[in-house]
């Protein structure tokens, strides 16, 4: 399982990308779709940082910095976009 962890993360990332494409093409209410797309992007960001960049093994300061950054940027975008 550990050996295939990177492969599993990659498959999840691809599925999330497909989900994002499906949501953006759907007729969901705009604000809901925007929130969903940004949340999916944040999840993908965290997966790449934690597993591909191995930040899961890093000091908590760096892990929290990544989360903090996402909250600031995604939160600001959600606040601004009508």
């Amino acid at each position: 399982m550990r050996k295939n962890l990177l492969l599993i993360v990659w498959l999840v990332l691809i599925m999330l990308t497909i989900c994002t494409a499906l949501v953006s093409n759907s007729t969901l209410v705009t604000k809901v779709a925007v929130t969903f797309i940004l949340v999916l992007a944040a999840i993908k960001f965290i997966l790449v940082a934690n597993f591909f960049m191995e930040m899961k093994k890093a000091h908590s300061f760096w892990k929290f910095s990544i989360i903090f950054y996402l909250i600031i940027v995604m939160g600001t975008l959600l606040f601004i976009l009508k």
Partner: protein
Amino acid sequence: MDTSTINSKNIAYPPGGILLWIIIFLELFTFGAALVAMALYSNDEPEIFHQSKLLLNTTFGAINTIFLLTSGFFMAKSVENFKENKIEKATFFLKLTMVGGVLFLLLKSVEYYFKLQAGLTIGYNTFFSFYWMLTLFHVIHVVVGLVILLFNYVGFKRKSTLNLEDFEASAAFWHMCDLIWLLLFPVIYLLF
């Protein structure tokens, strides 16, 4: 090759090195600020932003996302094999990483060609000013990343003294290109 491991739990030694991570956060905040600025401008011209977004090829954007994610996967596999002192496998995965980057640039070139053919240049409107500035700035990072990876690849082939710290730093820079694209694609191509 020095494949000795580093204690990543130490705050001063995140994977890739503290200097790289300072650079990564600076880049992320720069791109983040630009995307927020784009969102702010979109409130002044929502219809223009929406119509302009429809002129983008989201399929190309999605395929490019898959190229970069797959390239990132191969980069992680390369580092994993380097740590296990499997240099040949690390070299193979590094080659695949670079192929992913080249494919991204090729598709981006095709996309740019179509935009220019349609007259959608940087001065066309505010949306496309942001589109060109952000995506070109990202492309420059991908090109620089590829050059860094090429140096690593040549080092592997010549079996020169490459240590884990340097290789992880190169990998971190490459993953940064992926992180930036994971923000650019949804905002520019999907949200307006």
